[in-house]
């Protein structure tokens, strides 16, 4: 099962590495990972999408908590949250296909951000499933290059990141 975990870490040299090293060392899977600043300059937020059963997820959360640079771990899977991803997709272009690609881009509320004689770059944002759908539809036109940001996510409503509390097992 897929899980989205939000991790607040010290915005410090090596903090990202520790998380990545832990995942590979323990044999946990990373489907996507993104990292960026938060409302506090000394704190970064990592959004990690991983998969595994409940026991594995519990271990992932505990192992993340165990890292000294980790301030808070939130398993968003059990909360009402918003997920977004951004993709830049470079699609092959022929005179005959241009109109169709434009239509598809509109349907996905994407933007055409670059164009030349041979290709067109489309920007799409949305939940990861929407990006997947856009990719599938654009595939027949020939995707020349693609960059996806990985998922970022935030729970709805009241913020969870103010208090420094730990996930308890009991």
């Amino acid at each position, binding site marked *: 099962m897929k899980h989205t975990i939000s991790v607040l870490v010290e915005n410090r040299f090596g903090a990202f590495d520790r998380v990545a090293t832990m995942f590979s*060392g323990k044999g946990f899977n990373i489907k996507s990972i993104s990292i960026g600043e938060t409302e506090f300059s000394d704190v970064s937020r990592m959004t990690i999408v991983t998969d595994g059963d409940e026991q594995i997820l519990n*271990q992932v959360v505990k192992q993340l908590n*165990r*890292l000294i640079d980790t301030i808070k771990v939130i398993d968003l899977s059990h909360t009402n949250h918003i997920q977004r991803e951004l993709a830049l997709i470079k699609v092959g272009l022929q005179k005959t296909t241009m109109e169709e690609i434009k239509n598809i881009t509109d349907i996905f509320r994407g933007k055409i951000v670059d164009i030349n004689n041979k290709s067109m770059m489309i920007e799409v944002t949305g939940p990861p499933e929407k990006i997947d759908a856009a990719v599938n539809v654009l595939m027949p036109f020939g995707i020349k290059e693609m960059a996806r940001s990985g998922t970022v996510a935030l729970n709805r409503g009241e913020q969870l990141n103010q208090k420094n509390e730990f996930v308890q*097992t009991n």
Partner: protein
Amino acid sequence: MSNGTKKLSGADIFFECLKREGVDTIFGYPGGAVLKLYEKLYDVDFLEHILVRHEQGATHAAEGYAKATGKVGVVLVTSGPGATNTVTGIADAYMDSVPIVVFTGQVPSHLIGNDAFQEADIVGITRPITKHNFLVRDINELATTIRKAFYIASTGRPGPVVVDLPKDVIASECEFSYPDDVDIKGYKPKYKGHYNQIKKAAEIISNAKRPLLYVGGGVIMSGGSRELALFAKENNLPVTMTLQGLGAFPGTDEQSLGMLGMHGTYWANQAVNNCDVLVSLGARFDDRVTGKVDTFAVNAFKIHVDIDPTCIDKNIVVDLPIVGDVKHVLAELAAEIQKTPDVKEWWNQINEWKEECPMAYEDADGKLRTEYVIEQISKKTKGEAVIVTDVGQHQMWTAQYYQFNHPRSNLTSGGLGTMGFSVPAAIGASFGIKDRPIISISGDGGFQMNIQELITAVAYKLPIKFIIINNSFLGMVRQWQELFHAEKYSFTDLSASNPDFVKVGQAFGIESYSTDDPKEVDTLIDKAMSINDRPVLLEFKVVKENMVFPMVPSGASISDMIVKRLNPKRMM
């Protein structure tokens, strides 16, 4: 915050911090990147620097010191190879939760990343094998970082911390102030167990018919041996220990079932298989303990007390977890128990198992065996010595036949299984413990893995008894080859290539003796015990093809224990 308008150099600050942390011994080896520190060390009088002969020896010595005393072991080495040589010791300390702080020199900041002479990214290399590590990039952070390093290493579940010190940082200056408190946002170890969980555990133990305490190294680390003894005695509970747990409860006590797991006693493993309540105290359900997890204590209600939440439900899913310091939890648990469980029948059953399959070894042929040597050492020292073993057959026989009566008496590499641990770890222990004999026991293979440290013991006149159990084989590997690998003794026979250990000892200036006669064992042990101002070496030439039993084959269920020799035609 304390005083300071005067500027101090990085080297001054370094030693000032060690002083504030109460460090009295450091194990180290000088080199280019730490020359400033060694220059300053020349005038430092509050601590003793022990010069080892290889940096791996320094880390194991620091581990031995830390395991024996409970204090933080400290290592100081140079950059590059100096730092990479500490890696095995750091990994060892990580697996066995030993509090050590390793200071490594680093090339000057502006050269980091340039493949400079003796540069290695030791922070990157040690990231997965340290509790935490630091690269000090600014002299203003030096004191706080050292404070944090000692705090992290010694609190919660202890472990190794590496502090990498670039040469220019040590050479620069700043005002010194040492923080009184440490505040790390993401690190707040939890010592007190959850009250409701403890109450529930007490109730379940009270009503148990076949309870069993499964005790690990955590009890020793938390200093909870007294609490354990009170709790176990008060409620007449059987106690079985892991390799690292030996000594947490007196081995001579009739409630001790000895060690459990792969080479545990028959009755301890039967008790695990048949108990109805299993209380794990500071242990981590290691694969050498559980064997096949699907069949491990299947009918038991499992209570797991551990300070590290990641240990819970990692290998075995438990019914009642209690996150907290085992010493605190044991004291509270004892107070919460309303009635002592009725365990009379359970004890009858355990005693039956004991009679059914007691620990025994072949001794009718007059040949020397390790089991006998260990038994004699145990008798002669009355279980009062600090025993430092290496890894392999002799380690298991020591666990089986030495009656450890005190915590911090069994120093061994359990998790990582590092051959070469014993000699340097015994050296470290002997700087921490002066009033009890220190006995290093190694096999002929492992003894050669850090043999260079013998001269450290000689140089500091350490009264260590170095014991070599020489069966001319890598015995444990040989045992697996005989049992599971078609008797192909591939590269485990050292008989043609071992050195003359007595001559080796003598070359280092150590009084050395050797025997293969059981009748001489007592005399040699007495001789060794009478020498208290310098090391002594004893080589026991034991039979080659002896095997450690009982044994639960790797990955098998505990009930599939091999209690006797598989191959009856081989009688040695």
